[in-house]
């Protein structure tokens, strides 16, 4: 069966200062997603996660542009579609949940109207059946007494409720894919857990695929089947959540996992030294090498390609590359690698 979403070699660049400054926010990114699957995209701020989402839904900022690659959704390349054609896909086929529930709802329109819009415009539902549909959606996201609540306005709702309403809006057009861009960052921890459970449950009921963008690896472990780790606009390691959590091969993935606090552990938390690179002036070779504890001489000069480790598990690292190992490795690196393991 063909995948639902197949992103191939996507390149999205920001061109500013009249073309003199090119920021390669996303550079040669590929992943696939099947129906009902959940993919987690993790990375630090500025690694290009949000740009990937915006590229898929076709709502990039004015300075940004998809310069290469394809985004095949059910066999159609979204990168080639016009804005008019994309409009019929957004909200109907692909929905998105934004970060800030307090700002995502229009303060001047009733909850009913805001939830009803996707069904009204994409599914041509009208009148009594539209009211019924909104009621069902609000029920599905566990808004108490939906008949009464849908007449109210956003300021009368709590943050958690608003984010659930945003969830109802995402489901309203009957999408096959939901992109959730850090949907729980602005919620209380207790509300976060409830919200994630709710999303999981809705996914089981509707079979919708989810792309989950986050920097919280705990959420990935809880929600996702697959994981893609982004660094400086590229996926440095991708695979199933189990594979990556057990035996990550890329030093960056290892460092991210090491920086995650574990309950009951007395081990010191590892911080990744340095800052993410400026995407307009990337270092030569592997973009991570200045911060990498296990960098090899070749890392500073040549960029590693994608190495298949097993099945769908891939990594972009000289250490994971077959053959590239042993001979190039200086003594200290062996020691470092041994300590790292």
């Amino acid at each position: 069966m063909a995948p639902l979403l197949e992103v191939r070699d996507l390149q999205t660049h920001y061109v500013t200062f009249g073309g003199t400054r090119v920021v390669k926010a996303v550079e040669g990114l590929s992943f696939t997603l099947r129906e009902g699957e959940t993919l987690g995209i993790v990375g630090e701020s500025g690694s290009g996660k949000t740009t990937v989402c915006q590229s898929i839904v076709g709502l990039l900022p004015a300075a940004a542009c998809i310069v290469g690659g394809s985004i095949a959704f059910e066999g159609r390349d979204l990168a080639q579609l016009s804005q008019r054609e994309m409009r019929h896909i957004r909200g109907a086929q692909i929905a998105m949940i934004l970060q800030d529930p307090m700002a995502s709802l229009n303060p001047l329109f009733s909850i009913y109207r805001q939830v009803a819009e996707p069904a009204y415009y994409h599914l041509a539902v009208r009148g009594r059946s539209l009211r019924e549909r909104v009621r069902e959606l609000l029920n599905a996201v566990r808004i108490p007494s939906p008949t009464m609540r849908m007449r109210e306005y956003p300021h009368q709702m709590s943050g958690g409720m608003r984010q659930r309403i945003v969830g109802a809006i995402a489901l309203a057009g009957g999408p096959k894919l939901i992109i959730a861009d850090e949907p729980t960052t602005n919620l209380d921890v207790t509300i976060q857990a409830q919200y994630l459970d709710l999303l999981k449950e809705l996914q089981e009921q509707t079979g919708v695929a989810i792309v989950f963008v986050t920097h919280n690896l705990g959420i990935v472990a809880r929600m996702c089947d697959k994981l893609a780790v982004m660094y400086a606009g590229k996926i440095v390691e991708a695979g199933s959540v189990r594979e990556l959590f057990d035996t990550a091969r890329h030093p960056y993935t290892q460092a991210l996992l090491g920086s995650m606090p574990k309950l009951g552990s007395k081990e010191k938390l590892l911080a990744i030294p340095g800052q993410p690179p400026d995407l307009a002036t990337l270092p030569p070779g592997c973009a991570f090498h200045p911060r990498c504890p296990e960098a090899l001489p070749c890392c500073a000069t040549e960029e590693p390609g994608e190495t298949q480790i097993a099945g769908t598990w891939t990594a972009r690292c000289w250490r994971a590359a077959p053959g590239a190992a042993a001979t190039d490795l200086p003594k200290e690196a062996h020691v470092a690698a041994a300590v790292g393991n």
Partner: protein
Amino acid sequence: MARFIIRRTLYALVTLLILSLTIFMVIRLTGDPVTLLAEPGAHAEDLDRIRAEWGLDRSWPVQYLTFAKNVFTGDLGKSFNYDMPVSTLYFQRLPNSLELALAATLISFLIGIPAGLISAVKVNSVWDNTGKVIALFGLAVPGFWLGLVMILVFSVWLGWLPTSGQGSWQHLIMPAVALGWYFAASLLRLTRSSMLEVLRSEYIKLARLKGLPGYVVIAVHAFKNALIPVLTLAGVNLVVMINAAVIIEVIFAWPGIGRLLYEGIFQRDFPLVQGVVMEAGIMIVVINLTIDILYAYIDPRIRLTR
């Protein structure tokens, strides 16, 4: 809420007190009105008699207190020149000023809001730059100059419109454009910035993500939000246009409040000038007070500030 209203009302009264003191003293700096009221070459006794008749022989503090007491009881005094109560004169002229101000508001809406909207939606395009130039001219070119140029072009050269006076709708066009011009520019700028702010908001992003048609996103979701500050400004503008269109009304001989004030100043008609300024001041203060209270009613953050 009650405390908020009481505090704001006190502020309003203080504003009016300062206004009344200022206008009372400033108008007395223009000179002795009695010399204009009497025949040229009148005897000193006659002048004194007139002075006593109008209470001008008393000291300034006494005159001020009488004036302030009368304002409180709703009596603005009697005009020297017209020998009529100032309130009667004011309310006679009010409909004319209102007509002109409403026409000017309509024109400022028709130019300012669509142009501001286009500027914001097509930001940094040719349209936006055109809008910016219009706004700059609107704010920089004085209304009286525009009025004179229009009289020259449309009345003198082309003969399409009457030069001045009131009567038909043709009489209304030029003064309304000259008056609305500045306000159109200020509305344009506010609509543009308000719209730009709304278009950057998350809820507009979500509206686009829902796949709504572009016109629904712009005209319904964004515009409704952007309109709130614009309407507030328009309300204040209208009050200013009713009461302060002095120069435009003089140029076009429009029998409104501005012209009444102008005549009062020239005739050193103290009660008339004081009365008109106080009426305008009260109207502006009341409108602002109402807007403040309405905002507080909508926004709990304002309401709860002590």
